[in-house]
Structures are given as structure tokens and as C-alpha cells.
């Protein structure tokens, strides 16, 4: 009784290469042509690190780069990883020939406004910059006005930024210790950029630590600029069956909000609809 259009969501893929950026940051290149064709910027997949049931759950990751062959045909995606626990440590030890299992594409992508003159401001913090390389790869060919504001604690946390070179966006960097780019928080860059718009239409996409996205959302709400955050909640399933990954969304009920499953309603959410 097929009631649904089914696309292939479960992929057994090979790692083709690993690059290390130092300080726990790494990139894994994946041989996954189907995913490369299906994924849109802002979507994620859920990685099963090994076939045993320990660690049990999958780990959610954004697609970092969209890999193409010499003729421009999509051949795979990469992930940008940061080692924080057992799952990411296992991924960080992988290399050519290792296999991982992906569930995806999952979630809703970033959606560009219709007006092609809108300035797209991407505001990322640390590992939260991962979805924006794919975004730039996807949007630059459409001749969009793209600007990436990248924040991190220090240069050590932004070693992967060299992968954004010549990608087709203007890039500004801020680091809290001033070791790279402007000294300070990325929100300082955002405030300056919003002032410099002088009436030009703009849209903001943000991904990173909750406190950073909260600050970005408040600045954008005040400035009247539409903003969307890609939320990275703790997930058990990643595809809508467990009710774990929730965020508070404003709702006209006795509580003033409801809990929305970010893995299916997001992970990209309208900042003005969220309770921060």
C-alpha cells in the first residue's frame, strides 16, 4: 500500500579522504553522488558511525561541501567535524575506504527570498559555519549577493575557513581573542553590516551556539531584517518519530507556545517564531 513518494534516504557510503585542520577539526569526503544531487543547503543527515549498537544513536551533521568531478557532475558531499565525544572521535579517525551509513537528506533547507538583489548575510559561529560552504556553492551560481560573517574563539577554531576561499561570497571574520580578523564577537560585524545596508533588502541565516543565534535573532528583529536559524538540538531519531529535538515555537494557546520537532519542522526556523 504505497502511500508516499519514496526517495532513497538510507545510504551506505565510503569515505574517500580526510583532511585535518588541527585542534580537533577535520573534514571527511564521502562518495555519495545521490546525496550530492538530493541535498539542499541547510539540510542535514544522520550518521551511523559503526554498524554495532555502541554508540547506539546516529550523529547529525550538515553537508559541508558539495563535491563535483572535473566536468561539474556531483559526486559526493563532505562533512566538517569537530571532535567533542566518542562518535566524533571515531569519525576523526576515519580515512579512505572506511564506510559509514547515512540517513538523509533530512530537515528543511534554507530558502532564499525571491528578490535576487537581497543581500544574504550568513552568520556562523565555530562548527556552526559548516552549512554555509554548501550554501555558497549552491547560491553563488545564481549570482546572489552573498556575505559570510564568521565568528570563533580564536584562529585555532577557524582553521577550516581556508576552505571558503574563492567560494563566491564576501567573508568577514571575527575572533574573540583577536588572533584572526576583527577582535570581538561576530554580532559586532552583523550590526555594522546591517547599518551599511542603507535600505538594501537583506535576509540573515545563522547557525552556531544557542547564545550567538539568540543575539543574532534579537539584532535582526530590532532591525526588522528577516532571520532564520538552523537549530542543532539533541536528537534521538532525526526524522520525526521520537519528539526529542524540540524548540519552543510561539502559538496561540494557553501556554503561548508549543514544542516543535526541529528535525522535521526545521532545522531552519524563522527566528521571529521562536521563543529564545
Amino acid at each position, binding site marked *: *500500500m*504505497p*502511500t*508516499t513518494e*519514496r526517495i532513497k*534516504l*538510507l545510504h551506505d557510503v565510503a569515505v574517500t579522504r580526510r583532511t585535518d585542520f588541527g585542534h580537533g577539526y577535520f573534514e571527511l569526503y564521502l562518495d555519495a553522488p545521490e546525496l550530492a544531487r538530493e541535498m539542499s543547503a541547510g539540510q542535514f543527515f544522520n550518521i*551511523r558511525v559503526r554498524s554495532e*549498537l*555502541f*554508540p*547506539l*544513536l*546516529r550523529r547529525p551533521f550538515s553537508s559541508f561541501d558539495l563535491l563535483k568531478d572535473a566536468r561539474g557532475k556531483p559526486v559526493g558531499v563532505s562533512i566538517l567535524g569537530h571532535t567533542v565525544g566518542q562518535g566524533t572521535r571515531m569519525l576523526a579517525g576515519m580515512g579512505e575506504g572506511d564506510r559509514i551509513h547515512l*540517513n538523509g537528506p533530512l530537515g528543511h533547507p534554507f530558502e532564499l527570498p525571491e528578490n535576487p538583489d537581497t543581500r544574504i548575510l550568513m552568520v556562523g559561529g565555530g562548527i556552526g559555519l559548516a552549512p554555509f560552504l554548501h550554501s555558497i556553492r549552491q547560491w553563488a551560481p545564481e549570482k546572489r549577493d552573498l556575505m559570510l560573517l564568521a565568528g570563533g574563539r580564536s584562529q585555532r577554531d577557524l582553521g577550516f575557513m581556508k576552505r571558503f576561499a574563492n567560494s563566491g561570497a564576501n567573508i568577514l571574520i571575527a575572533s574573540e581573542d583577536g588572533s584572526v580578523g576583527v577582535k570581538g564577537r561576530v554580532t559586532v560585524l552583523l550590526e555594522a553590516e546591517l547599518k551599511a545596508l542603507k535600505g538594501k533588502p537583506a535576509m540573515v541565516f545563522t547557525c552556531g551556539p544557542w547564545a550567538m543565534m539568540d543575539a543574532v535573532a534579537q539584532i535582526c528583529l530590532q532591525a526588522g531584517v528577516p532571520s532564520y536559524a538552523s537549530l542543532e*538540538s*539533541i*536528537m*534521538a*531519531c*532525526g*526524522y*520525526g*518519530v*521520537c*519528539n*526529542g*529535538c*524540540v*524548540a519552543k515555537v510561539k502559538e496561540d*494557546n494557553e*501556554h503561548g507556545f*508549543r*514544542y516543535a520537532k526541529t528535525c*522535521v519542522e526545521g532545522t531552519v526556523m524563522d527566528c521571529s517564531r521562536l521563543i529564545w
Partner: protein
Amino acid sequence: MALDFSVKLGPLELSTPLMTASGCSGYGKELDRYHDLACYGALVGKSISRKPRLGNDYPRTAETAAGMINAIGLQNEGFDAFVKNTLPKMRGFGPKAVVNVVGHDFDEYVWLCERFDAEEGIAALELNLSCPNVAEGLQFSSEPGPCEKLVAACRKATQLPIIAKLSPNVANIASIAKAAEAGGADAVSAINTLVGMAVNWRRKEPLVANYTGGLSGPAVKPVALRCVWQAANAVKIPVIAIGGISNADDVLEFMVAGASAVQLGTILFVEPDAGQTIYNGLKERMLDAGVKRIADIVGTLKQRA
């Protein structure tokens, strides 16, 4: 060899012994994106209460060794919205639709049984007697008297087959299974999650906002197997096994220990197509062992001399 997967749970006949577990499979829509659901005899939806429930604060889940803890807080859309928007779809995926109900109190369970009795296309009701994340459910799952009284009242309220879902967080699960049987349940299912906890010592915080939550996944399988075996030895009605089931061998272990059917829970988070994989695995195992009817292996655990 033609294999027979059908099983009978009292009045409830299923084409295969595989079911989904409540709260781990939504109401079918998401799983259906992965494969045709014909491998399942029935889908069990997430618990439904009379009124919508908001659920607990975030974070709600945490991974543990070969398992996980959840404190979702029974978030659901409530009876009215479920019947209007979700139940019609849930009936359309192929497998039978089992509705899992949960109440704050005695009257809410009875109300739900009465109301669902009037709805079309429901194969059975599963009573969630045992959710550890809300205080009210507890006495129905831990004391034989209240359990029997509640099941008996639900029995009066509906013609639908009733499955009483038992908690492992009790001293003597056999006595609760007997109470459910005496109250008129057509089957019991076991287990719901074990109350557990996870802590981050550096942040000095619990990993789920509710402090405690329900442990599930492969880590709980031995406890579930013990509970199913004890329940099956105590009652004449069929027992449905739940708890850490992750592959075809797990299914057969539970069936040998006395389960007539099984439910897949946490494994679906890892393998959304687990039902299909396990169904294929069961076929292989049955051919291998010369078992034609899967029902024939139920309760075949040997008595030690």
C-alpha cells in the same frame, strides 16, 4: 517452503508478529517514507490523552551505554485532533492500527476507551499504565488492585481488544500481569522504559531537563526478557515483548521465552527500516531452523530437568 508469519493475540489477529512500539514510530507517516510497511502486523501510535499535552522541557533525550534515556512527557495532540487529523492516515498504511492511550487518572482512561470504541478502523487499544515521566500513571502499573480495577473499567468501556502495557519498575511483574488478566485484558505488553538518569559532572547538570527519564534500547533487553518470561508464565493471555529488540535473533529469543508478538522501539531511531530487515532475517532463520509457522515457537523454552 511457505512460511506462516501470522499470530493471534486473543481476538487480535496479525499478519506478522512485528509491531512498532508506542512513542518510537509516530503514527506511521515517517516510517512509511522508508519502505512499504507490510512487514508489520500492527503500528502502535504514541500515547494519546484526552487533552493535548505540551510535553517536557528540552533537553528530552540523552544517549547512554547501548541505550538512551528519554523524558518526552507524553507530548501529543489530544483526542480530538488525533481522531480528526491523524487516525485516518494511520489506518491507511497497511498494518493494523493500535491506539495507545494514557490518562492523568482513572476517569481519563475510561473516557478515552469509550470514545475510541466509537471510532472506525482501530484494531486494539494499548493502555499505557506505566509511563515513568508522569506521576499519575504509576499506581496503575505498580499495584495489582488499582491495575485490575482500571483494566476492568476500560473493559466495560470498549469492545476493542485491550492490551495492558506493563512497567518493569515494579517488585513483581507477574502479579501485575495477573491483575491485568483478571481485569479482562486480552493481552499484556512489556516492558515500558526503566527509570534511569544521566548526569554531566562537569556542568553539574542532568542530561534531560526532567532529571530522570526512561531507559530503553539494547541495554534493557535482558530485563525485558526476564519480565516477558515471568509474565508469560503467570498468565494465559498472550504477551507482547518490548525492550531493546534490534534484530531477528532478539525477536526469536523473546518468542521462545513466551512472547506471541514483539514491538520495535529505540532501534527504529537508528534503523528506520528495522522492520523490513528483521522480517527478512526472520524468514532466513525460520528456513534455516525448519520452522514453518512462527507461532509454533512461542513459549518453547525448555524446562531444565
